[in-house]
């Protein structure tokens, strides 16, 4: 979707503000929200692309106003309500509905180190033919899907060079909507800064963007 989350190249966002000796979490609730998101993801009810999409659909004005972990809180509630794990009434009251059966947590404390160490790669070791080869010129498709996509607006229609082939990965556009993994090659595509931004950019600089096969066409 052409959402406000797709920020590459936008103006008007101000200067970068750095904080010295920044804590990992600025208050206790931020850490709890982070951990609740991770612990609930262990149920496997949704995937990383659905997680991202649930943040992207936060209305633009709210997206810009909310802090990072406030967005994570909103996203978690939406995903759980949609999956039926909780109801809105339960979230508002903070109490489980009468008569609901108690589950056993998907992630117990003892398993946390192993779960972190294992991670959850979206690379798929399956034989899928690559449509493009390293060294080839490609054009990022000019398309504007209304759902989730990882094709940023600022490269659409632009020509770049396939710098490397990363292998085969789950395709976010379908995975976010649980329409299948559609595994395909992901390439690092090198776009000259001037191809993206015109004469104002340095003639030496480049932006490398990781793009799936379905986002590209021969140039």
């Amino acid at each position, binding site marked *: 979707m052409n959402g406000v989350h797709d920020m590459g190249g936008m103006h008007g966002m101000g200067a970068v503000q750095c904080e010295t000796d920044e804590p990992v979490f600025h208050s206790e609730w931020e850490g709890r929200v982070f951990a609740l998101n991770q612990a*609930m993801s262990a149920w496997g009810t949704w995937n990383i692309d659905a997680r991202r999409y649930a943040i992207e659909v936060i209305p633009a004005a709210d997206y810009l106003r909310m802090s990072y972990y406030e967005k994570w809180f909103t996203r978690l509630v939406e995903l759980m309500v949609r999956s039926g794990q909780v109801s809105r009434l339960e979230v508002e009251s903070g109490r489980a509905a009468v008569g609901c059966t108690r589950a056993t947590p998907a992630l117990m404390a003892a398993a946390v180190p192993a779960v972190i160490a294992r991670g959850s790669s979206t690379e798929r070791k399956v034989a899928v033919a690559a449509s493009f080869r390293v060294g080839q010129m490609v054009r990022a498709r000019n398309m504007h899907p209304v759902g989730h996509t990882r094709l940023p607006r600022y490269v659409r229609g632009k020509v770049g060079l396939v710098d490397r082939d990363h292998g085969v990965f789950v395709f976010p556009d379908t995975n976010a909507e649980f329409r299948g993994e559609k595994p395909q090659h992901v390439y690092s595509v090198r776009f000259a800064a001037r191809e993206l931004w015109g004469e104002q950019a340095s003639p030496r600089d480049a932006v490398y963007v990781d793009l799936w096969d379905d986002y590209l066409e021969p140039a």
Partner: protein
Amino acid sequence: MDNHEHQAVPSDLTLRVKALESLLVEKGLVDPAALDALIDAYEHKIGPRNGARVVARAWTDGAYKERLLADANAAIAELGFGGSQGENMVVVENGPQVHNLVVCTLCSCYPWPLLGLPPVWYKSAPYRSRAVIDPRGVLREFGLELADDVEVRVWDSTAELRYLVLPERPSGTEGLSEEQLAALVTRDSMVGVAVVTV
């Protein structure tokens, strides 16, 4: 201050998050001790010191550096790192004529196993919007002025690859041990918004 009487009224979010946690615990959906373990891991165990060890090893062991640039996952695993949000790592090397900078314009992708959770500025609209269109301007705000003949390569983490910058080893560090070198390596230098100095 921990004194109860002087505590500010808990924010709305504090209350909402507490209510949500108690609901999920009541329903048996989360183990509160697992939440504690997750927070402890990212507050105390996983952070930029991990990445600094990888960099220092690459600076002192040429064969390791080659492996790191060719197959980052395997080389990083040699030091015992890897996992969540670093399942597919790529390391990009700075040099006298090349400076690398990492961003995620679409969200906040960041190599957690090596750098920990990202700082607020990395996730912020100003950095995400400007790093790709005005990398030199952003670097200037971080106090880094690059010569015109240096090529800036910006890596936008749009897929599941996670990027770590291998900064240049500063001159004057020839006599330092791997451990002493690691102590010089900052988080910002591994994102590419700074260089390592002595």
